[in-house]
């Protein structure tokens, strides 16, 4: 299990309870802690009122992009159809981040109840919780919780004698990083090859089996019952102005790693101080924020608030909820090229920017660290990245450009040492060997 980092007592604990439940699947204990109170209220108040509460709370998606949840709920609710689906995205694509898995293991009822409230609001009756197949414990607990809630009449046929039906299933999915992306996840749920779709139409109108589908990250859904019970005003007071609430952040650095529930808008400096991730007095050189396709930010930007808009403006993104701290012994250029080639290897192959663009990008990175780069490479890198961003089909290709472009933006001097002087200031790459080798 991942270490949960203790946060200051005045920080809200919405997703992970401060005192862990002895058995998170125990329905009676959960109900004593107000589980399913939100479901009862939204059943009483009706869909329109529920969506209005979510809108007033300004809840934004925790899956990376930060899209306003209420807007998506409205679109799904207004799409004409007999069948609608709610898909809880608990895939947790980033293999170095365990936020979604820990949430599912430690607070499964919050996710289930949140999904149920969302399904009532958009008038869906089928809920699918997609979980990584390797997370066997999370899957076991979710299934136990669903069975207990069905026995108690909280899920299933005619819930709480209201005439509404809510069927919840857990679907283990496995096999690719890209499965986290919503249109690809829907393909996997349909047993098909995982490739993204041209949007629009969005899944909200044409999703699973062509029906309106609400795809929402599990952290987004787990926040919903709290909002309904405590009210949107209390929620809007937490986190930052444009993005209230909390989010799970996976911290990783020279001093170790751990998971923390952090109010959105907290300055990066305060977040990394939580884990003491800046090791033995060494200066922090760079932060990788957003996962494998994250942005590399310099130490000067440590006061940037951790929220969707501020990180975007700085060149990074919330992404998978990962913050990686590198001190002065790390080589930013080497890290950027390794990330780029990994992301390029994950690309699905559907489009030219994805199949060829990201590969050419990775090759430029490769040339830079091996001392075989060409004088035009920085320009080519900028041009190619701009073309990929402009022509990409899904966000994966767009984001794949981030490690190298933010590397170029903030660590220009280090990059030029590699390209022009064939040296690596951190002593990680060995670009000199080839450059100085005999010419034959």
């Amino acid at each position, binding site marked *: 299990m991942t270490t949960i980092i203790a946060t200051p007592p005045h920080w809200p604990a919405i997703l992970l309870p401060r005192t862990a439940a002895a058995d998170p699947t125990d329905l009676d204990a959960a109900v004593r802690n107000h589980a399913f109170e939100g479901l009862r209220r939204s059943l009483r108040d009706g869909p329109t009122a529920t969506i209005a509460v979510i809108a007033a709370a300004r809840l934004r998606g925790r899956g990376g992009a930060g899209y306003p949840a209420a807007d998506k709920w409205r679109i799904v609710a207004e799409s004409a159809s007999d069948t609608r689906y709610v898909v809880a995205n608990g895939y947790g694509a980033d*293999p*170095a981040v365990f936020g979604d898995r820990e949430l599912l293991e430690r607070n499964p009822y919050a996710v289930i109840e949140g999904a149920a409230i969302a399904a009532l609001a958009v008038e869906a009756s089928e809920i699918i919780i997609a979980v990584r197949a390797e997370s066997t414990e999370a899957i076991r607990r979710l299934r136990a919780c669903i069975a207990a809630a069905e026995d108690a009449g909280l899920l299933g046929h005619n819930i709480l004698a209201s005439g509404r039906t809510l069927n919840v299933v857990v679907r283990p999915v496995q096999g690719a*990083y890209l499965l986290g992306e919503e249109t690809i996840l829907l393909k996997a749920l349909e*047993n098909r090859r995982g490739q993204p779709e041209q949007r629009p139409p969005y899944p909200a109108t044409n999703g699973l089996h062509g029906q309106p589908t609400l795809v929402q990250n599990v952290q987004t859904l787990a926040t919903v019952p709290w909002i309904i019970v405590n009210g949107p005003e209390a929620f809007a007071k937490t986190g930052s102005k444009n993005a209230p609430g909390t989010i799970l952040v996976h911290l990783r650095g*020279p001093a170790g790693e751990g998971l923390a529930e952090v109010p959105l808008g907290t300055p990066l400096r305060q977040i990394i101080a939580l884990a003491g991730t800046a090791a033995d007095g060494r200066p922090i050189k760079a932060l990788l924020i957003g996962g494998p396709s994250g942005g590399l930010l310099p130490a000067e930007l440590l006061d940037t608030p951790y929220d969707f808009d501020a990180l975007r403006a700085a060149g990074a993104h919330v992404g998978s909820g990962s913050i*990686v701290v590198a001190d002065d*012994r790390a080589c930013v250029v080497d890290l950027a090229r*390794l*990330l780029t080639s990994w992301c390029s290897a994950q690309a699905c192959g559907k489009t030219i920017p994805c199949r060829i663009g990201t590969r050419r990008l990775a090759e430029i990175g490769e040339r830079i660290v091996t001392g075989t780069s060409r004088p035009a490479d920085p320009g080519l890198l900028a041009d190619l990245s701009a073309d990929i961003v402009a022509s990409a089909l899904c966000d994966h290709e767009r984001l794949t450009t981030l490690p190298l472009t933010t590397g170029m933006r903030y660590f220009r001097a280090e990059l030029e040492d590699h390209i022009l002087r064939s040296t690596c200031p951190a002593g990680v790459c060995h670009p000199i060997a080839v450059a100085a080798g005999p010419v034959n």
Partner: protein
Amino acid sequence: MNLIPGIGLVRGMSLTLRRFFQPKVTIRYPEVPSDVAVKFRGRLQLLYDENGSLKCETCFQCAQACPIECIDMGGMDTKGRFHVHWGAAETYGERREESALRRSGRPVPDPAYERFTPIDIAAVDSILEDFDHDPAQLLGILEATQAAFDYLPVGALMRISERTGTGYAQIYGTASFYDHLRLGALGAPASAPSAAPYLAALAAATGAGRQADA
């Protein structure tokens, strides 16, 4: 015929003059970019790289995308496995063995077509029976096939294609997308990229394991 000399010229010029004031249809390409469909992702053309080898990686994307299934192809994929996809039968008047691959100009050894490892087709058929030959259950069919053979033999994929009516490109694409499905022979490591290089990059950047020599 021409009573007035030069009338033909005047008639011709009047046409020129009329056209002159009509709206122009010429697009000043490339100064003015032309409109392209939102789905347009570039022209499909088989190119050769600087070493003279064909850049096509036999990924089947084009065959899968083509709405009239007029693209057929075969060749080695990037993992060194041989695959063939044939479009709909009615689009071909010629013998299929002599189609796209041969026309690409690359020498292809004939035995390539016989290199499929012989498999027990009955096992595939019984799996297909269990899944009702339903193409919508493709992932389940592939997982069951892998459970039976320990990997996905090309022969089994061909059978699944034939019996479910799904193009080979689609089946190969699905099988190669999922990391847990293996196209390699028995005991071969999973072909798809794993999380390991990413985790190693993070470990290198944070110095996990660096303490030892510090």
